[in-house]
């Protein structure tokens, strides 16, 4: 029963990821796509937590942390690129 509930949660998360992929393909502007990518990262993190409970192993906990950090940094880099056109700024008047 517990396993069935976890499977249901996993299916719901994968539905969310499919809908976010639709938004990435369809999205009219660049920020739309970045928001959908961020959402995919966050949902992947949650579904990895469910999978690691389903398999009763603690091996995937690091993956949760690393995915959280990577999706955050990716969103920040994309938004800097959209705002200014560059990611790493260089100062010329030094």
């Amino acid at each position: 029963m517990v396993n069935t509930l976890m499977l249901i949660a996993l299916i719901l998360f994968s539905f969310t990821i499919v809908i976010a992929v639709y938004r990435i393909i369809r999205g009219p502007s660049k920020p739309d796509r970045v928001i959908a990518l961020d959402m995919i990262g966050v949902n992947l993190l949650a579904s990895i937590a469910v999978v690691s409970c389903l398999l009763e192993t603690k091996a995937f906990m690091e993956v949760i942390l690393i995915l959280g950090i990577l999706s955050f940094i990716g969103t920040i880099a994309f938004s800097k690129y959209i705002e200014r056109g560059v990611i790493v700024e260089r100062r010329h008047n030094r």
Partner: protein
Amino acid sequence: MNADTIVEYTAAILMVTGGLMSLVSAIGLIRLPDVYTRSHAATKSSTLAVLLTLLGGFLYFWALERFISVRLLLGILFVFLTAPVAGHVIIRAAHRSGVKLADISKKDELAEAKERLMEEQNLERLNREKKNDSGV
């Protein structure tokens, strides 16, 4: 039915609630009209979904083998800190790069405030130039 079974069921129900929350945010992501309202759906309820799911995982491992997973707690803390920040940053970039609002939205207060600021700066510059001219 002992206490651990109850905690396991609670954890599973928390996970299913998190899945429902994330489905709600996905429906918001496809149904809402423009990028600002979409981020409203995508950041908040998706954060709540992840918090519920990670809390469920934490409870499950505690009930299963009395293991307090610091990594899951750190994951909860990190998602709770970074998801609103990421949403704010990406929406600021969207507004600065000039993404249009939806047609049904009535007012764009940030754009109005920006325009007012530009006008004030222009007026100030004109006044300064006039003063310089009369001084010469």
